[in-house]
């Protein structure tokens, strides 16, 4: 984990209030480091100074390309993401990276992976899907968005495999929640991977109890590196706890109590 300045290479609006940002490294030496970043890990981004925005914002790694450039996708949902969205090509962004523990892709040997994402939980699943697909895993994705103009990366996920999109109001794809799809369809998969708001994760893990799977958990964070205890989640086994920013954000589905 390191602190570095990333350089904004591109800033594009890809859906309502949703920005895709390409970030480059300020040193070539780091390129190979970035290649080792694991899907599910995140950047902890300083979006302003202490007087405007004291806390860093956690944003998932949505992709890493062959040059070590990083893609993030985020929704403008408050002051910090609004400030971040105004950073254009050439701006420098202070980030801690890579933060947290991602999906254990190296230890998995899967035929079929089911990705279940909701809203701003979708971005890390793209990097995950791409990584798994490159290893020959078949990818099925179910992605939920609020409505049509919130949808992004539909083509990109379609390229990875079968992809179903649902919207809360049916304005794009199926109407309903991702869990409705789980109910209706009889999908064959070895392992599921889910990222999205906590109520969605609860619904998904309830529906898929007993299945092998991983979830990525959200929480308000302080340090983002495991030092402040802001972001804990109770471990399912007894009285312990896990730090989302360090032990997570990815946990085995049966590891933590949501």
């Amino acid at each position: 984990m390191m602190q570095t300045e990333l350089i904004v290479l591109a800033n594009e609006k890809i859906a309502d209030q949703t920005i895709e940002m390409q970030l480059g490294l300020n040193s070539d030496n780091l390129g190979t480091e970035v290649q080792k970043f694991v899907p599910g890990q995140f950047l902890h981004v300083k979006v302003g100074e202490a007087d405007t925005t004291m806390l860093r914002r956690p944003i998932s790694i949505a992709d890493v390309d062959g040059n070590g450039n990083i893609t993030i996708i985020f929704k403008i949902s408050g002051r910090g993401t609004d400030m971040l969205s105004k950073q254009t090509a050439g701006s420098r962004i202070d980030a801690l990276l890579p933060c947290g523990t991602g999906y254990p892709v190296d230890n998995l040997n899967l035929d079929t992976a089911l990705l279940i994402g909701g809203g701003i939980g979708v971005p890390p699943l793209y990097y995950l899907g791409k990584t798994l697909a490159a290893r020959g895993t078949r990818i099925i994705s179910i992605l939920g968005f609020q409505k049509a103009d919130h949808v992004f990366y539909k083509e990109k996920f379609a390229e990875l495999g079968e992809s179903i999109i649902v919207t809360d109001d049916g304005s794009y794809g199926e109407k309903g929640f991702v869990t409705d799809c789980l109910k209706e369809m009889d999908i064959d998969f070895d392992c599921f991977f889910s990222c999205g708001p906590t109520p969605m994760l609860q619904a998904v893990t309830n529906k898929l109890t007993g299945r092998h799977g991983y979830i990525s958990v959200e929480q308000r964070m302080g340090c983002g590196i495991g030092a402040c205890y802001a972001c804990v989640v109770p471990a399912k086994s007894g009285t312990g706890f896990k730090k989302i920013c360090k032990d997570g954000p990815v946990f085995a589905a049966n590891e933590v109590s949501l």
Partner: protein
Amino acid sequence: MISLETKLPGLDLKNPIMPASGCFGFGREFSELYDLNKLGAVVIKAATLNPRYGNQTPRVAETAAGMLNSIGLQNPGVETICSEELPFLSQFKTPVIANVAGSTIEEYVAVAKRLDESGLIQALELNISCPNVKEGGVQFGKDPVLAAEVTAQVKETVALPVYVKLSPNTADIVQMAKAVEAGGADGLSMINTLTGMQIDLSSKKPLLANQTGGLSGPAIKPVAIRMVYEVRQHSGLPIIGMGGISAAEDVLEFLIAGASAVAVGTANIHDPFACVNIIDRLPQLLEKYGFQNVEEAIGGGNRNEANVSRS
């Protein structure tokens, strides 16, 4: 060469900068970022007798030039701290100050004793000011009689120097300082957080699960400076000053107000290199304002007020 050295009871510091309790864990994470030998000292997260899970989440909120936290003294308990965390820190040539919390005088004494016996720390900081747990010692921080009593009993039990960490949530900080001085404290740490709240407009409820949290960061610096200055006029105890430090200028403000060393809390969360950046910048800044060394700056603002009484 401007010397950054400063001496406090039990602590020979190579510089006056230490991370504040709770914003630095037990140092492991930060040791991945920089060499902890650079620090004047390290103050570890509060230790209680038994492991504590702390409060429900969310535990942090952002405020204007500050933040609220309601961690609730989460820690693995003094036993695990002594066996697993302190040995890690002892590889560094940096003094360790252990922050001690408890619900009863007996708990404070037991935790302090265990830490003393470990031989792995150089000083104790009694946290009688955590606003985030009902049984977190906050009653000791509001009542001068209790504060003096817990200080005295810990002092009776341990050989290590004892710093008492004062709460700003009081009408009379000088009275509290004098009480713990009378109780035998070797030094003061001040300030802990101010109790605050944020309402989440969407849920129409307090944002923090614990409802209230401790306000820290630059927002509270004027309150901290005032309290350090006031206490310095009425107590001879050395002060570790804190509250809103994020730059070397802030350190100098605390030194002049009367602190002998400082702790940096929230700034580490904003920028994990805050402490080392401040340490690097401090000599140049002392020089700019005409100080030959840190010792000279301490209480610089009070020189004309003369008699710092020991009463």
